[in-house]
């Protein structure tokens, strides 16, 4: 086919005789019952109402991704904090020790005294052990990191997974 896009268009001319011929052209009608034959093959279904954002999220099964992403973010930040703390452990320890000695330790001792007086619970005992240096703080950080890592991995897997797409309707 000739491409006319680069040539100036030719304006359709005026010709009353030809226009009279063309004006005699009518429309043709299909056989009676055309609408019924068409309607027999058409699916009349109301369009679904616009869903609420929450419902749409749940229908698309994206909520595990969202939950995973949020927990993953929390886990990633805690892991990053752990790594940073491990890298700057001496500085952090010195700063914490100074702070605790100056302000926190007296308060903690008073709190622990109060806790010991109130109950001989396991939590208080663990806290006492940590503060007394019998359980190293690093062990607590490692425990947190070992919990955070699998959560992060699951969340990343959910994000990276190819989303399930709706198959587009193909007209017959």
């Amino acid at each position: 086919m000739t491409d006319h896009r680069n040539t100036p268009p030719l304006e359709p001319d005026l010709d009353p005789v030809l226009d009279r011929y063309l004006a005699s052209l009518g429309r043709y009608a299909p056989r009676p019952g055309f609408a019924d034959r068409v309607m027999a093959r058409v699916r009349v279904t109301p369009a679904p109402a616009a869903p609420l954002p929450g419902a749409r999220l749940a229908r698309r099964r994206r909520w595990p991704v969202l939950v995973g992403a949020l927990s993953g973010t929390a886990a990633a930040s805690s892991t990053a904090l752990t790594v940073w703390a491990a890298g700057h452990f001496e500085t952090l320890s010195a700063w914490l020790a100074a702070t605790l000695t100056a302000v926190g330790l007296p308060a903690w001792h008073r709190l622990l005294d109060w806790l010991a007086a109130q109950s001989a619970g396991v939590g208080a005992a663990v806290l006492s052990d940590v503060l007394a240096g019998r359980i190293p703080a690093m062990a607590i950080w490692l425990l947190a990191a070992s919990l955070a890592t699998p959560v992060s991995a699951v969340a990343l897997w959910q994000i990276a997974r190819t989303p399930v797409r709706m198959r587009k309707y193909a007209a017959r």
Partner: protein
Amino acid sequence: MPLIPDFSSASDQDVVEQARAGSEPAYRELIRRYERPVFSLIYRMVRDRELAEDLAQETFVKVLNALASYRPEFKFSSWIFKIANNAAIDHLRRRQLETLSVDGAPHATTADQMESSSLELADRAESPLQELEARELGSLIEQAISRLRPEYRACIILRHVEDRSYEEIAEILDLPLGTVKTYLHRARAELKAMLGPWRE
């Protein structure tokens, strides 16, 4: 008894909205509005009544089943004409038709086949003399149009039967505006040449 909605003053867009909401009368209204334009376009393109019916039916089924994907910023008429024209062009590409007979399809051999495939104009409110004259003119111009190449034919039908603007024809046929004008100019020139012996 359920009320039948009155679509007489509704725009195509309004009717489509109703159809999308699940109203069967709205679907039927769209068919009523476009069955003749769509059938006429396809009929003049493929020149076979039975085939034109099938292709027109396919066009409507495709359009009505895909109403959810219709974008209201475009004219509904452009959309349905585009699908109808594509259906006809696809068919012509698959099967090269030869000549038109206003008495029936080229492959019609029996009287029944000729009758079933013959051209049948829709009712017109004209006097017998005007009708006779129109039939004569119509017969000549139909034969001339049938000899145009499909792209020219579609342009002529959309412009002179369906009264579409150049811009809408360009949209329907997926052609630049200048190409549509050129096609119409050349189609008219060819028609004039073909009708030459009958022109006064």
